[in-house]
């Protein structure tokens, strides 16, 4: 069974909570005691119906202020897949939360109210999903019951979205589904009231959308996370480089280069607790041993040495290794980002310090216009910056590798994560 990470974004008005409630309820991931607790709370607060939105607003701190703080994670499974939903609220700190929830998602669900059509908020959701390179986007045209299941209305929204999305970065795969989350049409079961729709209901789409090819399985990237040295008699000379494969496939016998030093060696073995494996691919946590006693430590990266034309391997590009990085940054704290600002930066398993060389432009997430005269990035704003880093980062464009193309900026005084960055090709 495969794992699929899903990001949903939107406000209560879109019917997002109802949609999630229905997915969880119909897949039996909501339990009787949770439902009873929501029913009790609904009565206490004078709601006329069992408000499934109460399942998703969890904390008293939130209820007291009538806001939703943050990303909540929900889980459900069908016989075909296990799902992790990163559920982000629509209102305050919207961008920060959606970027957080979207960073690891395979699929984003953007809700559109069929009566209202494509609003600014839906555009913003779609833009952020695209910026974060979520490979699959579902535009859920909800509340079709309130427009009499009208195909023309649905088609108009599809056309509207299609013309809007042509102005975005390349969107890998968009699926439009007309539905009524409230009545359950095209969520889990196919709607009989929209015979004109010949696609899949949402859940079946989520169960079958092909995500295995989304990862980069060509360019081998192995950020060294931890050096395992047992210091015991039984394993006196053992020295293993532990980490999670961030791209491609690494095989025993591969010729590799250690970056940034440029030293070359060969993979002696790939160890796991359950014994050695012949190869490890993107997403696997393993321990790599090298033939030579070269100096390798946390923060270094193993990549495959350029292979000659005689091998059957696909040619392997090397990551850029440089102290200057161009990136789109989403700002997440009150203290704004300005030119000259200094931060700690974490990229793969490497910490360094970064100084903001230049804020090239701020992006208006509603109009997608570039404001080139902007002097700062405030909370929830997105902009293109150039950073100078104290140590070289071995990086790829975010569009080619979401792991080696991303970083966080951390405020050195408070240690708070202040920004999220996506590297663009230089």
């Amino acid at each position, binding site marked *: 069974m495969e794992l699929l990470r899903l990001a949903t974004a939107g406000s209560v008005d879109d019917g997002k909570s109802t949609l999630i409630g229905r997915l969880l309820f119909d897949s039996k991931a909501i339990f009787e005691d949770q439902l009873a607790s929501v029913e009790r709370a609904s009565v206490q607060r004078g709601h006329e119906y069992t408000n499934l939105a109460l399942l998703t607003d969890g904390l008293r701190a939130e209820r007291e202020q009538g806001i939703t703080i943050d990303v909540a994670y929900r*889980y459900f499974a069908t016989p075909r897949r296990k799902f992790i939903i990163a559920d982000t609220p629509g209102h305050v700190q919207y961008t920060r939360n959606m970027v957080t929830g979207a960073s690891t998602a395979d699929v984003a669900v953007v809700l559109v109210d069929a009566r209202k059509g494509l609003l600014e908020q839906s555009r913003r959701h779609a833009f952020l999903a695209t910026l974060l390179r979520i490979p699959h986007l579902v535009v859920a045209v909800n509340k079709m019951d309130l427009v009499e299941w009208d195909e023309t209305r649905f088609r108009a929204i599809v056309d509207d979205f299609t013309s809007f999305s042509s102005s975005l970065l390349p969107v890998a795969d968009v699926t439009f589904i007309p539905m009524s989350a409230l009545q359950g049409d095209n969520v889990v079961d196919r709607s009989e009231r929209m015979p004109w729709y010949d696609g899949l209901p949402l859940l079946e789409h989520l169960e079958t959308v092909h995500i295995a090819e989304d990862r980069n399985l060509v360019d081998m990237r192995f950020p060294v996370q931890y050096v395992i040295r047992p210091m015991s008699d039984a394993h006196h000379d053992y020295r293993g480089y532990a980490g999670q494969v961030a791209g491609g496939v690494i095989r025993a016998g591969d010729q590799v280069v250690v970056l940034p030093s440029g030293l070359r060696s060969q993979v002696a073995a790939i160890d796991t607790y359950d014994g050695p494996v012949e190869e490890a691919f993107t997403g696997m946590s393993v321990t790599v041993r090298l033939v030579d006693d070269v100096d390798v430590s946390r923060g270094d990266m193993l990549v495959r040495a350029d292979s000659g034309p005689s091998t059957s391997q696909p040619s392997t590009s090397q990551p850029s290794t440089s102290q200057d990085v161009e990136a789109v940054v989403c700002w997440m704290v009150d203290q704004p980002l300005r030119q000259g600002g200094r931060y700690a930066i974490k990229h793969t398993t490497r910490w360094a310090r970064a100084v903001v060389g230049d804020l090239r432009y701020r992006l208006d997430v509603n109009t997608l216009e570039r404001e080139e005269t902007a002097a700062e990035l405030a909370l929830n704003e997105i902009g293109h910056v150039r950073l100078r880093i104290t140590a070289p980062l071995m990086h790829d464009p975010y569009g080619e590798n979401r792991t080696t193309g991303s970083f966080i900026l951390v405020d050195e005084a408070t240690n708070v994560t202040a920004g999220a960055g996506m590297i663009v090709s230089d």
Partner: protein
Amino acid sequence: MTTAPPTASQTQPLGHHELSHLDALESEAVFIFREVAAELERPVVLFSGGKDSIVLLRLAEKAFRPAGFPFPIMHIDTGHNFPEVLDFRDRRVAELGERLIVASVQESIDKGRAVEEPGENSSRNRLQTVTLLDAILEHGFDACFGGGRRDEEKARAKERVFSFRDEFGQWDPKRQRPELWSLYNGRIRKGEHIRAFPISNWTELDVWQYIERENLEVPEMYFAHERTVVERDTMLLAVSEWIQPRPGEQAYEATVRYRTVGDMNCTGAVESSATTVPEIIAEVAATRITERGATRADDRFSEAAMEDRKKEGYF
């Protein structure tokens, strides 16, 4: 639609370069273990003897073998344990050859650091926080691995994998650090610490499927057995030193098992005939009640019981 998710042994084969959900969850957890060990000076792994912490110890083996764990194992002993859990703990730690620290709630009470809550058969659940925070200070720990899962409870659903605690051990849901990709931020100042939850994204079912796949031993109380119980607040509590039938309550023999391991006086059993891990998996897949709702009196005080305890520094 059908609802019984397949057990680990029944899952369809995946393509050549695809990870099964258990492999993906395992890899993520191993990554988290290594990240904490690399970024923090003095971590510790909390172990209760329950299924989640049993899984944690296996994941730590996966992360660090053939080396020893770069941290000790710590048990917060409430003094109200199920005896078989303590036996299990000592046996497991000896098998692993790792170091165990026991921090005792009774000692905290004896030293006057913690005060037993009033009333017959009061829970020591809240008092564990005092003992835990004292132990963190005493040993200078800057990170604690815990077996918390986001599917357990709604406060946990919003907690980070690297959960920042201030110098009072408090969790502030409004001041959580954004957590993106797998870029965990473990930077802290002296006196602060990180609670790290490697199995945040696991569900109860995932835990049991993993126990089955890894062939992990769990305390016998997880399997159906005969026990003398009383029914109280719709829970079945084992009659013991701390629980005696009150007037009007009838003690009786029942075939039960435990879904969680907590204190004897606040952990309820559920009626069950599951005597093997596959039978437990089938039962968990079909159940309609959350494990905490079914079995933990400590979580029932209010809608926000867990949230309140977490803010004070609870696990």
